[in-house]
């Protein structure tokens, strides 16, 4: 309890990460870059951090949870919506990028193993960076946003298989040969089949009932889901697969549940916390001397990624009939290396397939490409105009331009808390022909409502965002939870959205008024009138 080392390490890591993140934000630099730079500053440059076992464990858990999260986001409907274009374009792009990357590596004088490793590692784009960028720009639902996410998911599956294979190779500790690869592939496929089979059984027969039973306690649900994730991690290890694939499959098997959005929101902060530590310690571990040695190569590879990926993806996507704008934007979004590039080469180095120089090379390349790509994405509109003006986009001649973007709510009324009051409010609004969105944490209370519903706790900003609160014409809460109502009032009035909440006790009125509530439902006072009427019915004049 008095051991300061762990607290000191975490304190320094998190402070550096937070500071660099705050600097990076206004410059629109992705958080990953900020973290790795924080690590570079801390580690090789100053030597303040000596990664303890626990810091390493946290990093490892961070990667596992990231894949769990990706799995959680990957419901069957999402896969279906993305469709053929993402699958074909994704697979074709990864293959083409790998081949081209390998060739470039060979030309630059690397060995076959190293070149192919780098080619494959750099063929992936960054799920974390792209998804976060799209989220921030509110473009996840756009055509190019959905295409980009679809391709990323396809890449994630390829990564998962590649990591599994790598883990299988690493476990045997032998030299790499064709027989080895075949055996590794066979073992990986068998393990994978077993894991998926168990996941399917779980998703169909165990999870829905178990999670439904636990559903009333959201923290219990959360702990159960994490346990499910770690059980699959152990299972994957047992089957000779990677930790990552176990977490990923566990996530997918939970993605079909009603609770998956709530789980995503709950896992998210944990991932942010753990991954920040992972990326900082990645920077700490980066071999500065090696990074210095490899910079010309890194520049060449960065240029290669920035050029070939967008072109490949844009051309492939446009083959499926998408117009020049979505094709171009999807390509531009995906023009960078991935966090999985780092993870893959780190794993490869761990089993002795590649040297530290390759790790440094991929890290520097990934970092550079993510940084530059973020800048390009910011300038996407201008780049698009320039390229179109130069006639370079004529190759991307599809017909499907950006259509109506999904069913985004606006001018609606958000009603929170489906107790008796909340239901009456929903009914009243429906009678008045309003567009209503009902929100509650209990799926059973949302089940039979005649309006669109959203499962979640309004304490989370993400839930409010999903509810489109900023565009709503009114937010109403029937909840009998003091803190939740106060926070909702504060956030709504800060956005300038009219808000009416349930002051279930008259003593709450002053605070809620001070927070800017437009109208307060003081139910106990309102009830008095009805009591008087009821008394009148038995002959008491009141």
């Amino acid at each position, binding site marked *: 309890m008095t051991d300061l080392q762990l607290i*000191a390490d975490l304190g320094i890591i998190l402070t550096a990460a937070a500071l660099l993140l705050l600097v990076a934000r206004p410059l629109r630099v992705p958080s990953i870059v900020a973290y790795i730079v924080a690590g570079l500053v801390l580690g090789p440059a100053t030597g303040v951090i000596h990664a303890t076992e626990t810091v390493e464990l946290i990093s490892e858990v961070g990667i596992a949870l990231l894949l769990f999260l990706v799995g959680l986001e990957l419901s069957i409907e999402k896969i279906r919506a993305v469709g053929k274009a993402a699958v074909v374009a994704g697979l074709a792009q990864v293959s083409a990028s790998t081949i081209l990357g390998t060739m470039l590596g060979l030309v630059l004088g690397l060995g076959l193993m190293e070149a192919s490793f780098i080619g494959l590692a750099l063929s992936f784009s960054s799920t974390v960076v792209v998804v976060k960028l799209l989220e921030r720009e509110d473009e996840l639902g756009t055509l190019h946003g959905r295409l980009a996410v679809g391709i990323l998911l396809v890449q994630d599956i390829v990564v998962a298989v590649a990591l599994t294979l790598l883990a299988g190779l690493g476990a045997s500790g032998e030299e790499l040969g064709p027989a080895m690869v075949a055996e590794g592939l066979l073992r990986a496929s068998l393990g994978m089949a077993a894991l998926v089979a168990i996941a399917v059984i779980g998703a169909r027969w165990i999870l829905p009932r178990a999670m439904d039973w*636990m559903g009333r306690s959201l923290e219990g649900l959360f*702990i159960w889901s994490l346990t499910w994730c*770690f059980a699959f991690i152990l299972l994957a290890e047992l089957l000779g697969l990677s930790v990552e694939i176990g977490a990923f499959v566990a996530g997918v098997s939970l993605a079909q549940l009603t609770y998956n959005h709530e789980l995503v929101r709950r896992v998210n902060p*944990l991932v942010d916390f753990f991954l920040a530590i992972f990326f900082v310690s990645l920077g700490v571990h980066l071999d500065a001397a090696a990074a210095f040695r490899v910079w010309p190569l890194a520049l060449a590879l960065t240029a290669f990624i920035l050029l070939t990926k967008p072109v490949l993806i844009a051309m492939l996507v446009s083959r499926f009939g998408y117009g020049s704008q979505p094709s171009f934007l999807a390509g531009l979004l995906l023009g960078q290396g991935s966090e999985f590039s780092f993870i893959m080469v780190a794993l490869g180095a761990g089993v002795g397939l590649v040297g530290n120089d390759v790790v440094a090379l991929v890290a520097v390349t990934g970092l550079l490409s993510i940084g530059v790509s973020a800048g390009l994405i910011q300038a996407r509109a201008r780049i698009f105009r320039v390229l179109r003006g130069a006639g370079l986009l004529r190759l991307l001649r599809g017909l499907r331009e950006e259509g109506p973007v999904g069913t985004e709510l606006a001018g609606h009324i958000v009603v929170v808390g489906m107790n008796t009051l909340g239901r009456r409010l929903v009914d009243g609004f429906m009678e008045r022909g309003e567009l209503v969105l009902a929100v509650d944490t209990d799926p059973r209370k949302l089940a039979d409502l005649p309006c669109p519903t959203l499962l979640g706790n309004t304490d989370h900003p993400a839930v409010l965002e999903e509810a489109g609160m900023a565009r709503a014409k009114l937010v109403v809460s029937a909840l009998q939870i003091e803190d939740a109502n106060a926070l909702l009032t504060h956030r709504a009035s800060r956005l300038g959205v*009219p808000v009416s909440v349930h002051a279930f006790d008259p003593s709450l009125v002053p605070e809620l008024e001070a927070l800017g509530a437009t109208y307060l439902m003081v*139910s106990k006072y309102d009830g008095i*009138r009805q009591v008087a009427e009821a008394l009148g019915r038995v002959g*008491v*004049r009141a």
Partner: protein
Amino acid sequence: MHGIALLLAAAAAAYGLARAMDIPPVPLLLAAGVLLAPTGLLPAEFLQDSLILGVSFLLFQGGIELNPARVRGQRGAALRVGLVQFIALAALGLIAAVLLGFDLLSAGYLALALTASSTLVTVRLLQRRRQMFEPFGRVVVGVLLLQDLLVILLIPLMTRLPLGPLAVGQGVLAVGALGILMWISSRWLTPAVLAMDGDEEPLLLVVLAFLFGFMLLAGWLDLPLVVGAFLAGVALSTFPASGVVRSQLASIGDFFTAVFFTALGALIAVPEPGVILEALALAAVVVVATPPLVAFVAERAGLGAKPAIEAGLLLAQTSELSLVVGLYGVAEGQIDGEVFTVIAIVTLITMFLTPTLSHERLAWRLLRLHPVPSRVTQPPPVRDHVLLLGSGSTGMPLLETILTSGQEVAVVDDDPAVIARLGELEIPCVRGEAADLEVLDRVNARSARVISSTIRRPEDNRRLLDYVRGVPVIVRVFDEEDADWIRESGGTPVLYSEAAAERFFQWYDRSGPGSAAPG
């Protein structure tokens, strides 16, 4: 990885059991940890780090909750109850521990461990029973906040006690310095947090950096890390910053809480019979002494008799902070593993007992033993009167209109302020529990013309309906299910949620955002 998986699996089992038994998960998490220990699968260093991280988040979250506004009008009552319970339990604990043969320092640790009640267990029960915002619920919350603060501030003094008064003085100074720093930093941190609301990643990172930075600072000042974690939380305890941080931190907190208690359980040695007996004796002190003590003070401080008893029963357990006290004692080498085990078992036992002990049935039984001072200012009407149960301040307008119509009225309420006001108006009233049959008898409920009940708890209304069969009873209820249920039992429900919705739509149709602009 294996360690985390194992801890999580144990925690998952505990949560499942807690759900099935409908009790708070903390004691079950501890018990799961105890069962996990003999497997020897958890490396010591991993356990140690899990504890440090877990306790950091636990105390940080505790600090965030430390906002006196939560207690509202009950601050005075909470302060009195909290202090009396704290001091009396410390004294009783010290005496009991010395009598059990512990040395003075160990007895001091045991006494400190007995002083606080568990926030995690009690708040959960209050939420479960929807009593958080009843006056007695607010008193209980206030008591818990006060005790948390006292225990945290006493830990650094306790660990320095054997080093002499100089060290203790230095400790006080160091805590003061950290407190001042906390106050200063809260002035810039709070607006920064609010500005970042909605931008989750930087917000989380800044808050976590602040937490660990403050703990590091506490370490440099030679204070226990938990003091740093707690004060870091206090820096963010003003609303709305507290709400923003709480929502952002909830799942990380849940994760580490589960890990912390399970890991802590794994540290508890399997006790010998003698140790169990000592623990039983101290648990008895807590369970027997707390309810009458708290009930006595709470009633003097203005709570009704039954809510005061309920507060006493609800607070009769030791806290998660008791375990932290024990951990520090062990870490500082001031107490041995046996004393820690005693603290842990007392906590386990009392936490397990709380849901049962605090059940309403026991409160009613104890109320029977309780001499209620009868202060009837005005003899209640014998028959054909209107009886208002639990009128409260919201009922005043109703009462006035009934009176002006010349109808005879009697009122039962447990709020002394309401009773005092009615007494001034010379309205027959009785201070007491509206669902108490003796009280109902005193106001001649069975011969009333009509009864209006604002009693909130369904079971209480059932008692009432059973008792006054034949008399029309109007019951104010919020939920539709309760309304059905009242109707079945022969009462007339008035849904005030419906009334609130009606009133809302009057406002909405007249001046809501829909009515204003035509386009």
